Structures are given as C-alpha cells and as structure tokens.
C-alpha cells in the first residue's frame, strides 16, 4: 500500500519543498438552496453569483526548513493560498509543485515510480486556527493522536504507539501525558488543544505545515509559547512552515526567529515580500506601511501619542474579492495612488535576485508614476 520510506525525504533533489507558479484560485459560492438542484438546472436558471477571486496569479517558493509568513486582512486570500499550497484547494490556474513535481500531475498518476500522491499527501500537513474545532470532541486525545500512527505505521503495536504519543506530549510540555491521553478535548485548555493539534500533524513527519492563524485565537501570553514550540519542532524535524497570520507582531516574531520571509497579501496578490527586518523596519508598499501603522505599540507613551492618528487609508471599505478594482488593486485605499495606478497593475518589482520586493511603482525611481497626477490631489504620508 504505502510506498513511503518513512525515514528519508521521498525525493532528494535540489527543488524547493514547495513552489507555486502563477497560482490563481477562484470559487463560486453556492448557497445551500441552489445545491438542492442539479448543476444543469441551476445553470439554466441563471443562478449563482460572481466568482470570488481569492488568489490571483501568485508565485511563491518554500525551501527546506523555511518559514514563510503570509500576512493580510480577512479577504486577502492568505488562507486560500495556504490551502492551495498544501493541496486542499485546487488552483484554477497555475501549478503547485512539490519538490519539482506538479501535485495535480502526480494525482493523475504521472511520475509513478518516482513519487506518489500519498507521499505528497503525507508531506503537506495543516494546523488550524480554531483549536476547539481542531480536535474531535467525541474522541479521546489518545485515539486522535493514534490515528496518524495507525495509518502510517500499521505494524506498530498498541504499546509502542502509546509510548510514542506519551513522549511526544511530554516533549511539547503536556504533562503528565498518561492523564492527558485519556482526556477528551473539552478537558484541555486552549493552548493544550493547540499543542495536541500540532503534535498530530508532526507525527506524520511532514515536510511542510500550513499553520493557519494558529495563535490568533489564543491568549496573547500563550502566542509566544506556541510559536516557540513550532520553532523547536522545526529544529528537531526540519519542517518548513507556511504561517498564516493577520497580525504583524506574530509574523515578525516567527519570521525573525526562524530567519524566514514575510509575504504581505492584499486582495489575492502578494504585494510585498521580504525578510522580517525588511518588512517591519523598511516597508516599501503603502499597504505594508499601513499595516505597520495599524499595529498597536506596546509602549504606553508611544501608544498614547498615536492613538488619535487619523487613518491614512483613503477608504474604510473592506476590499471585495468579487469586485477587484482595475489597475493596482490597492489604489482605491492607497494614500499615494496616482492616475497610472488606476490603469496599470504593478508586478513585484525588484527581480528574482532581490530578496525584498514590492508590487508598487514607487520602487522604480524612473517609472511614469512619478509624472502621473495623484488621485487624491497630493500624496499623503503614512505615519510610521
């Protein structure tokens, strides 16, 4: 059945663990009522709405023991992109490659003998945001943690499984493990549940874990705890993370500590990508700058000084992924938008060789942007 060599990575080539090339994801909301009818009927009756352009033409690479943080507001497509990366969502366009192999092609049975769909399935795992929903309330911790082991180590006996789960719980700071194993999820605290969910993913020894807002539902004081746990586990197992967050402070912490990158998403696009230091201390894209402005400072003096700051955004309306603005999709909100921004859609500027890149004409000193009129009658500063 499984052809997996559980010890070494399936393929040892120089390709990145995961690479996404020009990935787009659109989806159509189908309401429950429409689902009562066959598709042919719904089409004929002209039901259904505008598709949601969740992700639009995004390329991203994740290397060995890498950490990439996707940051953005709700509706930015960060979670959809993450789910596409680990194969939970099919891209409508573009390709997702695991160590150089196109995932869809592998699923169709191509590359047989080199890599199988099960290998990829096991290599790409997920940890969810809501630790309450991450664990089945009707099953004990032991049985939920035994599941991956039973699946991938079918010959392992009850006691070995028990022992492994117990050691793992202990390692991640859940003690005494014998007690916790017999508990139901409701008998655990939020942080403990999240640890169990992380262990469950880790037991498969995956190459890449999508950590989807894993800390945002937790108490602030627990967030560092969980991020440290992820970092420790990375050291132990060499896992890469695609860490999704809406919070710049969490993004900075994990990206900085792991020496990873932060990618800022807005309306389905990556608008800026760079190291934690680049993004936090030298943000180029106006949207990244606004995100930094909106991150509340801890220092009370600084916080008090800035609390009454006017918002630098030109519009308070949340972006609608059904209705993407023309040109640069941020121009409706951007305090530095010029006429050209309403017409031309900027790519990530800076070229492959540069680590820090932003999708903004302001990156190019000679771009026609500088001669174009501001659409707000003059650029506005973003207080940083």
């Amino acid at each position, binding site marked *: 059945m499984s052809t997996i060599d559980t010890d070494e990575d399936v393929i040892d080539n120089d390709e990145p663990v995961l690479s996404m090339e020009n990935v787009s994801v659109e989806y159509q909301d189908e309401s429950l009522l429409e689902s009562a009818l066959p598709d042919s009927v719904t089409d004929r009756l002209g039901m259904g709405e505008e598709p949601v352009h969740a992700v639009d033409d995004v390329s991203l690479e994740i290397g060995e023991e890498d950490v990439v943080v996707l940051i953005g*507001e*709700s509706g930015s497509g960060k979670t959809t992109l993450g789910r596409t990366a680990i194969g939970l969502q099919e891209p409508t366009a573009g390709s997702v490659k695991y160590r150089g192999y196109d995932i869809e092609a592998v699923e169709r049975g191509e590359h047989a003998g080199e890599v199988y769909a099960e290998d990829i399935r096991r290599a790409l795992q997920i940890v969810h945001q809501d630790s309450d929903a991450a664990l089945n309330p009707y099953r004990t911790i032991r049985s939920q943690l035994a599941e991956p082991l039973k699946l991938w180590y079918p010959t392992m006996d009850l006691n070995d499984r028990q022992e492994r789960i117990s050691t793992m719980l202990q390692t991640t700071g859940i003690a005494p493990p014998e007690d916790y194993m017999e508990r139901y999820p409701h008998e655990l*605290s*939020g*942080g403990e549940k999240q640890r169990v969910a992380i262990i469950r993913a880790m037991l498969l020894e995956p190459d890449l874990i999508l950590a989807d807002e894993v800390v945002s539902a937790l*108490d*602030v*004081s*627990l*967030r*560092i*705890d969980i991020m*440290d746990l992820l970092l420790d586990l990375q050291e132990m197992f060499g896992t890469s993370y695609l860490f999704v967050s*809406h*919070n*710049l*402070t*969490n993004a*900075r*912490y994990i990206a*900085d*500590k792991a020496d990873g990158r932060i990618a800022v998403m807005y309306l389905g696009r990556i608008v800026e990508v760079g190291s934690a230091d680049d993004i*936090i201390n030298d943000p180029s894209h106006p949207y990244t700058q*606004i*995100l*930094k*402005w*909106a*991150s*509340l*400072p*801890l*220092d*009370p*003096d*600084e*916080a*008090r*000084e*800035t*609390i*009454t*700051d006017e*918002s630098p*955004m030109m519009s*308070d309306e*949340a972006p609608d992924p059904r209705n993407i603005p023309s040109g640069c999709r941020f121009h409706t909100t951007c305090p530095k938008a010029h006429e050209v921004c309403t017409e031309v859609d900027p790519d990530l500027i800076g070229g492959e060789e540069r680590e820090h890149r932003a999708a903004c004409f302001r990156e190019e000193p000679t771009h026609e942007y500088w001669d174009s009129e501001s659409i707000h009658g003059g650029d506005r500063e973003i207080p940083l």
Partner: protein
Amino acid sequence: MSESEFATGRPQENRDTVLEVRDATVTYEMGRGQARVLNEINLDIYRGETLGIVGESGSGKSMFASTLMDAVEEPGRLQGSITYYPDEGDPIDITELEGGDTKRLRWEEIALVSQGAMSSFNPTKPIRTHFEETLSAHNADKDEGMERARSIMRDLNLDPDAILDEYQHELSGGQRQRALVALGLLLEPDVLILDEPTAALDLLMQRSILRLLYTIKEEYDITLIVISHDLPVVSGFVDRLGVMYAFEFVELGETRDVMHEGAHPYTRALLRSTPNLAMAVDDIATIEGSSPDPINIPSGCSYSPRCPIADDRCTIEDPELIELEDDHDVACFYPDRARKELPVSLSEDDSE
C-alpha cells in the same frame, strides 16, 4: 487635552470615586468543593478615568465586569460590597439593590459592552428594536432617545439610517461592535465597561475602533473600564492599569508606572510575553507554566509556582495588594528584586 494630563503621570488630588469595590468575592459551589473565581477584590474607580484591566484567560477579568453590575449569573455567589457614587445624591450599595432598582442602575448608570459582540443582538429583531426596547424599559422618551442614538452612531462613524434597520447577521464585525457601543451609551451611563472591545477584528478595524472609543470617551465624559488580554489594546488608551492573575489584582497603578516600572514578576513576564514590533525578538519570552484552576489555587502567592524569584515565603504567605509608591499598588514581597532581576525593555533602544 488629556495628553498633557497624562504626561504628568501623577495622580490628581481629590479624585472623585465613582465605584468602590470592597472585598468582592465570587464563589461557585461545586460537587467537590468551592471555586473562587474572584478573590477579595478591593478597588476604587475614579470618575472620568479610563481603567484598563489585563490578564490571561480565566484570570477573572470578565467576572469582575459582571460583579460591577451585580450581574454574576447563577449559581455564582457574590460577597462583599460595591458602592456606586452618583453625581448627585447618596452613595448606593449595588449589591443591596433589588428588582427595579438593580434594573435602573444597569444601563442607566453602568453599561456593559460584552465580548460576545458577535451575538449580542437578538438575531430575529432589527438593531432599531434593541434601542427602542432599552428606552421603553427605562421609561425614557423614545423620540429624544432615538435622536440621541442616531447622534451617537454618527459619532461612531455609523450611518444610523442604514444600520438601524439591519439585522445582526447583516452587519460586519466592526459595525456590530460599534452598534453595541452605541447601545451602551444610549442612556448616558456614568460608567461604560468594554469587555474585549476589539477581539476578533482585523488589524485596521481594531485600530479605528480604538481611536473612535478614545474620542468618544472625551466627548461623552464617562468613566471607561476596558478589559483585554492584549496589552497593546489598552496601553495607549487607559489612564490606570490593573493586572489580574488568578482571580485577583496583582498590580494596579498609572499605566506608565505599571508598564515602565512594573513591580510584580507577573506584570513583567506578561510584558515580555506580548509579541510586539519594538522589542528585540530575543527579549520576547513566554511565561513558564500555566495559570491555576479555580478549584485548586496554590497556597501562598498564587503566582509563586511560575515565579522565577519566588522563595519559601511566597509559597506560604499570600502577599496583599499594598501601596508601593504613590498610586501604585503591588501584591508582591519582593518588588525591588522583581525590577532588578527581571529586566523588561519596551523597545530595542530603551534600556532601563
């Protein structure tokens, strides 16, 4: 501006108390013993101030909010006294009030914007109904009241004509939160309690709500109590800060004092464990251990099992919340050691 007031950082003389909490304790009877979910709280809340309360989940913050309105739910039992000093007239012990008087006090004098903003409206009634019901329950003039509601909503950047006829599920998270604040201000209360006012909101919405709340506070001249587990939410917003741990206050004082010169080991650990952009990443650190459960609170100082500077005394004797400096109370035997041995710097270049 209050900014200059704040900058002086010193308590003003003759502060006027609006709520006085004495020995407030909330217990739950369980099959196997008693759970204390609020433990002998003593606190004065001053008229016109903004008081922030921070602490981890289950530290008793929200319970404290319920206590201020004498709204602890069954089978919880509240002991102690909570005295409300109205602008004019005699002080009232809230816990002694009955029936109609409790009803009147709630919302007319003290209102609460609870953390469940996402489901705080009756899902089958439009937002307008909630305002009208509240007015008629308190025998207020409906036309005048609705006019006030509209003006509050406009102050909160909400379009009353659109919002009032919507249902809860038709509003965005930010709109719901603001509509709930407007409902809280409807009867012009003296005290408004905001429980996690920005939880579950996006970064930008969070920021704009905090700004609105800050300006509203100036305009409506109310006492605000802001409860959050997220220090940055309150740090720029509140005049005084109370830190709760294991169902009691462990530190209380001017926000600047508590944050820059926190004297309780927990406060200092909490600051270090808060992800932020300014501190060096390596200075950010988690708090070891986990908070106690309400049935089984450690003897002595409840923080002692997690405290790096705790000694034998801490495990036996429970430190009281006592005044350390002017208007800065701490419940720790070793405030000086805490400051010296547990360094915290709020920004990279700021080394104390």
